[in-house]
């Protein structure tokens, strides 16, 4: 039985879809079978971020309505083995699928794939309830901004009420701005949200260009800083690495210094 992980944030535009695409590609590169589920009914995006928009025939709502089998709607990513996309519908309403129907769908997918990554829509209404319905665990994506963290806190509360274990990805951190005191640090975000950190992703131009091309940064040949961060997050998700500092490539001496309180956490 696979693991279903919902990627959520409350606020839009903080990098949920990019996280789903890159984490999914990275897990597939590690040899796991992965299906990316776009749960944003009416506003599908994961297909374009993945560069698979031209291959959609059937979608999530078609499966739920019994218009096709799950196998028919799934798009296999030809760039890498074991990676599939279940696109959302662009023309249906969020209410066209119920949380129970989503739960059944995700359970069926878990039977066939190691990881089911669910890309949650922004907001905390029906779309959110659908996306979390079948999830075993959650990843909350937050950028170091007041509005993003406020919304993330709301979502963390809702996930806690559903008893869904939740971890945090701090997205778009600029080490330089943190150093200048002009940006909240990942530790500030962790402290405020009281969540376990899964990883921090640096602000990286490579994400913009890879999104333009429809090629997740983790699938692109050149290793960008963000791609490395996503790969580290993937190894934390699988449990290969369970130390965030190691996963983030923080050096041995820096960690000792940190443990001794010599350098900032």
């Amino acid at each position, binding site marked *: 039985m696979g693991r279903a992980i919902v990627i959520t944030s409350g606020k839009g535009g903080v990098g949920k879809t990019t996280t789903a695409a890159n984490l999914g590609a990275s897990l597939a590169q590690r040899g796991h079978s992965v299906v990316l589920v776009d749960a944003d009914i009416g506003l599908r995006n994961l297909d374009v971020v993945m560069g698979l928009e031209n291959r959609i025939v059937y979608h999530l709502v078609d499966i739920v309505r019994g218009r096709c089998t799950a196998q028919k709607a799934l798009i296999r990513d030809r760039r890498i083995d074991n990676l599939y996309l279940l696109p959302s519908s662009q023309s249906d309403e969020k209410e066209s699928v119920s949380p129970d129907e989503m739960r059944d769908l995700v359970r069926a997918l878990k039977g066939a794939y190691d990881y089911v990554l669910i890309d949650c829509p922004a907001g905390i209404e029906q779309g959110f309830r659908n996306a979390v319905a079948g999830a075993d665990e959650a990843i909350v994506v937050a950028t170091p901004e007041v509005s993003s963290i406020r919304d993330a806190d709301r979502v963390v*509360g809702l996930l806690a009420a559903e008893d869904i274990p939740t971890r945090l990805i701090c997205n778009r951190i600029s080490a330089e701005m943190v150093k200048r*005191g*002009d*940006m909240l640090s990942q530790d500030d975000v962790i402290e*405020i949200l009281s969540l376990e950190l899964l990883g921090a992703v640096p602000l990286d131009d490579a994400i913009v260009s890879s999104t333009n091309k429809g090629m997740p940064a983790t699938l692109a040949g050149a290793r960008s800083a963000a791609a490395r961060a996503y790969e580290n997050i993937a190894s934390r998700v699988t449990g290969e690495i369970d130390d965030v500092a190691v996963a983030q490539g923080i050096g041995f001496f820096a960690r000792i210094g940190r443990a001794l309180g010599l350098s900032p956490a």
Partner: protein
Amino acid sequence: MWNEIKGLFGARRASREEAKGRLHLVLAHDRAGLDGSRLQDLRGEIAAVIARYVEIDPESVELDVERVSRDDTHLRVSSPLRAR
């Protein structure tokens, strides 16, 4: 010159700390479910109760919602007593 030095140390620190302070305040109110008008109503009622027992200026009663941690949010009422 002084302003540049100040910029390097003092003012530069500000925006991160300001964000933290604002977040603590906003989240405290969010988690308590107390928005502006409910907080005003609560303040008014508490002031009225206090005024039944001791002499106060109802306008000086202050309510603060403070988030100590995720599971620990405090409501603090402060009310200066009028000197006899």
